[in-house]
């Protein structure tokens, strides 16, 4: 009996790991139908998609670049969800973070040595994002305003604040001089550009070309991503480090313990003497801080200036949720899930260009992928519940459910 069970256990694990892949394939099969209707060859399209995202140097670089904001926003989302609050406001938090980073950079960035200016810029973004996240947190804790509602509204407010600043106080003086009135800021000082991978490689003295190391084929591409000029910047390293830090925060510290406790059961947490309200505010604040950090990294690593708010946030507030949930709300899971989801997004785009099929088709297919992947979660959960080695019959609390819940019981309403 026990041998039989152990065998099942192993194959189950494998099956669990494979299921999302199966789901993606299933979604792509359905998507293939749509592609066929559009007169495109699905096989070619998908080759373009995956090849585009992972198959060559630029694709890989694009995917990693895209994964940075996904990862940082996703971390914020994960903290909020773990803390029992739903943060749909990452979009706005990212925008205000980017705004303050930009403001700091343009106004004061040149007065500091580069590294310090970058650090301060990142902190500025985090701070602003944290404030923007704290507002719905406080509103929820003190006045019982549902955070889904307030964060959706705060997103719009952030966009308008951005426009207001960018066409007035923060507009690039050059735009005013040229009379074009384009709502973007001046460029941040070059000293504040987060180093690109190629710069880091130079600093480390790595050979600048894959051929120098005798690498060919895909290995050359992978090495090329690291050393050759691409847009890949050190924000990626930062994001990975931050993911690990968030993991430590959530699972190794008292703060994380409290956040998770409140998120899983605010009642018990209150009975245990935790301040549920302040913890919710804390979760939202941290969540906003990471979204703000995402904004800061986008500015310092990629854009080097602030422009149309929605173009900077670029839907990361929402795709970050998907990345976070694909990563099972686990900071270390979010690293691969951001890269994979980022790859899907990048690959979708590349497919559009390679095949000249409408970009919206890739949006539809991505939607299908999301739907299929979340659906198969069901089977994974089902098996996990079966796997739990219960010595006694399921107690009163043994009803299976997703962990942790997206929407916790209302603690304040």
């Amino acid at each position, binding site marked *: 009996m026990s041998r039989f069970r152990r065998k099942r256990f192993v194959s189950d694990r494998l099956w669990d790991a494979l299921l999302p892949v199966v789901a993606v394939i299933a979604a792509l099969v359905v998507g293939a139908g749509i592609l066929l209707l559009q007169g495109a060859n699905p096989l070619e399209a998908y080759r373009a998609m995956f090849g585009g995202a992972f198959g060559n140097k630029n694709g890989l670089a694009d995917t990693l670049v895209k994964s940075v904001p996904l990862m940082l926003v996703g971390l914020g989302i994960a903290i909020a969800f773990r803390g029992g609050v739903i943060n749909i406001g990452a979009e706005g938090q990212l925008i205000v973070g980017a705004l303050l980073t930009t403001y700091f950079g343009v106004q004061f960035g040149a007065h500091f040595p580069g590294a310090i200016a970058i650090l301060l810029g990142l902190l500025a973004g985090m701070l602003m994002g944290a404030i923007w996240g704290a507002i719905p947190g406080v509103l929820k804790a003190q006045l019982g305003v549902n955070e889904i509602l307030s964060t959706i509204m705060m997103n719009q407010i952030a966009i308008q604040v951005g426009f207001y600043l960018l066409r007035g106080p923060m507009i690039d003086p050059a735009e005013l001089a040229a009379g074009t009135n384009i709502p973007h800021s001046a460029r941040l000082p070059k000293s504040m550009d987060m180093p690109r991978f190629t710069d880091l490689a130079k600093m480390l003295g790595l050979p600048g070309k894959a051929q120098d190391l005798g690498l060919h084929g895909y290995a050359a591409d992978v090495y090329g991503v690291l050393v050759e000029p691409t847009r890949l910047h050190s924000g990626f390293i930062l994001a990975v480090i931050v993911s690990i830090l968030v993991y430590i925060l959530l699972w190794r510290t*008292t*703060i994380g313990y409290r956040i998770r406790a409140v998120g*899983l059961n605010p*009642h018990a947490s209150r009975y245990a003497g935790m301040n549920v309200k302040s913890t919710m505010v804390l979760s939202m604040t941290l969540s906003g801080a990471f979204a703000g950090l995402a904004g800061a990294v986008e500015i310092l690593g990629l854009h080097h200036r602030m422009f149309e708010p929605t173009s900077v946030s670029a839907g990361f507030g929402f795709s970050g949720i998907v990345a976070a949930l694909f990563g099972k709300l686990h900071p270390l899971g979010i690293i691969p899930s951001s890269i994979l989801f980022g790859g899907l997004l990048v690959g979708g785009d590349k497919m559009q260009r390679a095949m000249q099929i409408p970009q919206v088709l890739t949006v539809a297919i991505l939607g299908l992928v999301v739907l299929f992947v979340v659906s198969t979660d069901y089977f994974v959960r089902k098996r996990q519940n*079966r796997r739990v080695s219960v*010595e006694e019959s*399921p107690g009163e609390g043994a009803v299976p459910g997703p962990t942790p819940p997206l929407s916790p019981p209302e603690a304040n309403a």
Partner: protein
Amino acid sequence: MMTEQHLLPSGLPRIERVQMQGIVKRFPGVLANDRIDFDVGAGEIHALLGENGAGKSTLMKVLYGLYQPDEGQVLLDGKPIEVHSPTDSIDYGISMIHQHFMLVQNITVAENVALGLRSTREPRLDLDVVSARIRELSAKYGLQVDPQAVISKLAVGERQRVEIIKALYRGAALLILDEPTAVLTPQEVEDVFVIFRQMAAEGHALIFISHKLDEIFALTDRVTVLRDGRVVGTRLTSEVTKKELANMMVGREVSLERYRPPVEVGEARLRLHHVNAVNEDNHPILKEVSFEVRSGEIVGVAGVSGNGQKPLAECIAGLQRVQSGQLYLEGRELTNLSPAAMFKAGLSYIPEERMHDGVIKDFSVAENMILQDYIHPPFSRGIFLNFRYIAEHAQKLISDFNVKTPSRETPVKNLSGGNIQKLILARELARRPRLLIAAQPTRGVDIGATEYIHAQLLEQRGQGLATLLISEDLDEIKALSDRIIVLFNGEIMGIVDNDEVTVQELGLMMAGERRAPVI
């Protein structure tokens, strides 16, 4: 009116006999029901007795269609039936009153009753018709229930009555009662027993699940004892003794008597001075409550559920604002301090709703062991948790308090109710409290665990702990308390010495009769 003359007042045909034959139900890793035979007939009340996890609920869920048996069959009047869902069982005339109320909180009694029934005015609701019938049933069975009342405003006892009304309303020929008295006062228990007997007399068949031996003797005709998923035996209630049943159930000798050794009572640990509190609607929920609990003393708080026990505990724990009055712990005034401050001051609290308020189900056993103290050394160093110490601590408590768990990393949701309660008790006592509030410490806990918990409480008493024991189980109050406070409507009806009061006297006080306080 026709229905009045019929054997079943609802007009439904009676179920002469339900037989469950060779029922096997497996859960992964567990054989919950192992070839169980069970039967009940019209006019009979058949008790199903067993400890938690013995398979009683599983068996009944199979009968009610919530679970599908892996083997075996159910015969209704000799004919095999297939019950796939509650819809089927309701069609067959089977109703079930669950251990946990199956009531929708924010709607009225009438709506809860009407749920799932066809209206006489489809698609519109016919709540007036339903209400009239509810009143009819209330009158007939003496069940005081206001059809317009919203469930969330009802006391536990009233909710239980709603559950019974629901079953009666559906005219259940067979009624499954899963620990229906767990939350009722003695008087209420007596009241519902009257109803159950009346139903049996009318030709209903009743299955009564309980682990309270007194009730089984008071109510039932036959009793089947389950242990570890198997039938230990079926006896006529009149032909068996309490001790015999207890032994069958636990599988060993159990002592049902508690011995309260005399202890030297020390200084006052907790003192309440004219404490008042209001709820969110600004209605008073505690009125001028004053009493004290001394070292080495267990003070029982008796009362019908919803008469201020919970606010009292929460006021002391800092979870409920004290509107006026003072609260002293070891002489220091600590009125309206935060829960964290109260815990720091030496309070331990076993909350009433342990799954809801006492543990975090998705946390591991070890994590649940540090729920209050995670922030203090040695559980943490700076902001970092000290995992090694946490693990040691958990391991020690698991073995000290005999918590049955696969490992300290197992999520608490996979533990049984009794073990969860032991875990909470372990956690609270390990904090070396100055004062312990134990609210319903053994509700829903099997005899073995109850025995253990009671022993622990008494042992702590012996070591000088001041304990405020809040329970709706008068037997428990009587068994453990030195003094007893009776709450009614947020007021103290009297504070009496346990040795000088009878259950009947307590019952009267619980119903609102005041007694001069005896300090």
